[in-house]
């Protein structure tokens, strides 16, 4: 879903799509802002996507 339109200052840019960036993006949309999530690599997820289970709950990552 490519959106060429500029969303203006009601938009926020998040640089880095790891767990931190993704969470920030999700919360921003819930708070009423449009988000551009810029990720250097081919997919979002960052280091967490590489982890098997994660503490403290040791359930699987995503």
């Amino acid at each position, binding site marked *: *879903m*490519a*959106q060429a339109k*500029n*969303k*203006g*200052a*009601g*938009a*926020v*840019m*998040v*640089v*880095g*799509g*790891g*767990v*931190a*960036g*993704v*969470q*920030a*993006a*999700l*919360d*921003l*949309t*819930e*708070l*009423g*802002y*449009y*988000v*551009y*999530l*810029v*990720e*250097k*690599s*081919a*997919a*979002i*997820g*960052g*280091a*967490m*996507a*590489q*982890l*098997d*289970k*994660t*503490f*403290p*709950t*040791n*359930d699987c990552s*995503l």
Partner: protein
Amino acid sequence: MEAGRSPNIEILSNADFLGLDGKAGDFTAKVRLRPRYIDADKCTACGLCTKYCPRHLVDEYNEGLALTRPIHIDYPQAVPATYFIDPDACMHLQHGTCKICVPVCRSKAIDFDQKAETRQINVGAVIMSPGFGRVPEEALTKYSYGDHPDVVTSLEFERLLNPSGPFMGEVRCISDKRHPKNIAFIQCVGSRDLGCNNGYCSSVCCMYAIKEAMVAKEHDPDCEITVYYMDMRTQGKDFDAARTRAEEQFGIKFVRAKVADVMPWERQLKLTYATMDGKHHFEGYDMVVLSVGLDSPADAKNLAKTGAFDLNHYDFCKTSTFAPLASSHDGVLVAGAFQGPKDIPESVTQSSAAAGLVSGLIKKQRGKGVVTKTYPDEQAVAEDDEVRIGVFVCHCGINIAGVVDVAKVANYAGEMEDVTYYAESLYSCSQDAQEVLKQRIKEHRLNRVVIAACSPRTHEPLFQETLKDAGLNRSLFEMVNIRDHCSWVHANEPAAATDKSMDLVRMGVAKARNIKPLPEQTVPVTTKALVLGGGIAGMTAALNMADQGFQTYIVEKNGQLGGQLLKQHYTLQGDKVADLVKDVTGKIKKNKLIEVFTDADLSAVNGFVGNFTSTITVGKKETSVDHGIIVVATGGKYHQPETVLGAKLPDSKAIVTQNELEKQLAGKGKTRAPKSAVMIQCAGSRGDDLAYCSKTCCNDAVKNALKIKEINSASQVVVLYREMRTYGYAEDAYREAREKGVIFIPYAKDQMPKIDKKGAKAEVSFHDPILLEDVTIAPDQVILSVGIVPEDTEDISKLLKIPINADRFFLEAHVKLRPVEMPVAGVYVCGLAHAPKPLDEIIVQAQAAAAKAAIPLVKGYVSVEPTVSNVDKDACIGCGLCESLCPYKAIQIHKIDKKRKAETIVASCKGCGICASHCPTFAISMGGFTDEQITAQIKAFGEMREE
């Protein structure tokens, strides 16, 4: 992942952040999108191209432990789920040859003509979250990493443990694939090491080493695992418990020693390590795992230049204690590991906090950029309408079709009563399949849809969305999981897997016959907030709520705002606490949206998310206020220990707490610094009165020790500790203290120091593990690093029906994913009431709570999931069992016509079904899972299939 589906998140992957002009509220960012060489709209992620691509490439995703091809996807659930071509490895892009993938791809998605594109994007604010980078090579090579394949980093080990990793989750030596009999973990690799300019502690490696060790033990209980460490820094909430489990339940050994080197030795690796007493030891291991730290991202300097913000001396983003997420550039915030090494729960907390700060910063533009999706009017489906079921059976590429005979399953479904339409589809979840689904619903006037595919957990929302697009109520949907339950678990028995798929589809259709449309409900909210507690957490949360435009009440039981901070003087970083208190209380006083009640008691709370009514009692006066959410920030206080070091504490004026010492040192008297002092860490914590680590006392000890040295450099300070938990940048101060002559001596739990009264003084006896001697000293002052306990959590727990843990701190809804939310909707927690933590973390958590709490207020309503409990008033006998069992406070007994009846508060109900399963008169049914539907499903299970 959710982010891939939101219409308001545009993912620019394979992209570079190149420039930032303008100012906060009105920035123009420049972003370059590198070509993927694959058309994202056409790629179905079938994976055929990877199979044909002739060239091998080291798989970075698997930490170089596996091979992939230049055209690939890192893992099947990647977002975006589009393959891409690595231009540095592709033979066509490098040498103009090959191009095998072009004809192979059935969707014609491969496009070698794609060019890089640069976009100028107007945004109000920027959040930097580029995470962390790799520690320098030299930190690894000194342990023979690179020389011997069985020395691996913890990230590589993480991949080895993963079922999708190179050995399908089995732990094997890389050298010869044998199962290692013993494994050594070396901590602090590339951390706490000035040799590679990483003087800080990475904060997460102790915990993840414990996790990895435990998972490895689960795979192979006979493998012996030893962790070599300096301090085990498991300071997080409930982390010490994990360490105890690792030791006692899993038999993992922990050895306090410095590893000097690792040498290849026959088939093994020889570890040389030095224990505290200076002795050297040798041990052979099959495998060595290096617990690598988190470094700053490789391109941090560039990013800082582009974004025009400052870095700290370790090249992470520079911020301050009182504004932990603000970079030096107004409007540019930071979150996650780039702010400083941290784990997932803290990264997630920072992200919410940063989102909330942005929301305050550009609140005028709120809602202007967002796209709201609209749906066609819902088609009415009445009780006696003809049932018209559509069944769609998915191939999931070869995922299902490779095992299950999909055509047979679909044809079987086609013969069933009420099934008006049936079809197979290659990928039911693809974009074009949604279009087809929409058309078929309309063409065949379908009023129930059954999709036999994968897991409802991941895909149900997508299909339900399509139903809504087709004008059908989203509850008229049933999903049958023939992938996980059939083709995956019965991969070697295709006939049986097909049979089972048919049985499951029959059951699904039987249920579908009985499903009814469920109403989409929303409940309006009062757009006001109530913050309980006026310490720094409560004040920060209130200010942030007000910044976002919401009226906020603060209820503080004391006569004055400020809480524990009123007793503190300076931070480890040297900031004056009084400045912060003055600044924040000043802002609160000026803010017209905030109303403060001091000497106040929250005496009653009624209602539910969006619609609370509370009573605030001040003296004899009661005020009733309406509000949509509650932030619990009731704080904590210093523990007054009775048991210290396993013994009763003697009564002596020479024994003081760190906080009392701090007050004394903050004074003006010339002799305010003791000439000699012994500090006792974990006094009353970690096994004495309190079971847990209080996280802040190591920092406080270092802070005060440095202050003593600053006032009188001749003073002697000895710190007796179990583990110095000066995680993160606090490690700098710990190092400085040692350099300035503060003496740190560890003690073991089974060899605790003793405190006795000796006249006016107190005497401390302990074992010195370095000199291997018992020592007794009588310093001027003995200083106890006492822990932190929560304030009155029991009462509030009862009032709000929110849970507390064994240590009496509030228990969040999900430690990792929902760290500031309570299980009861509309209630949030932050600060010491949640767990002990230092000031900067408290501020961040309060900002995060305010961000999460603002979400329902921004929306103006809460939407209710259709699957909620429903009480048949005639059958209800008002016994109240359901009310007492509901974990979410979502079902309550009310008097209706003088009779006690249960009533669901739909806004709070999570659809768990506990009430329905316990009701003695079966008066409760769950939307979407009625007894009628489930019985029909079970009956269908018993029916025989005609062959």
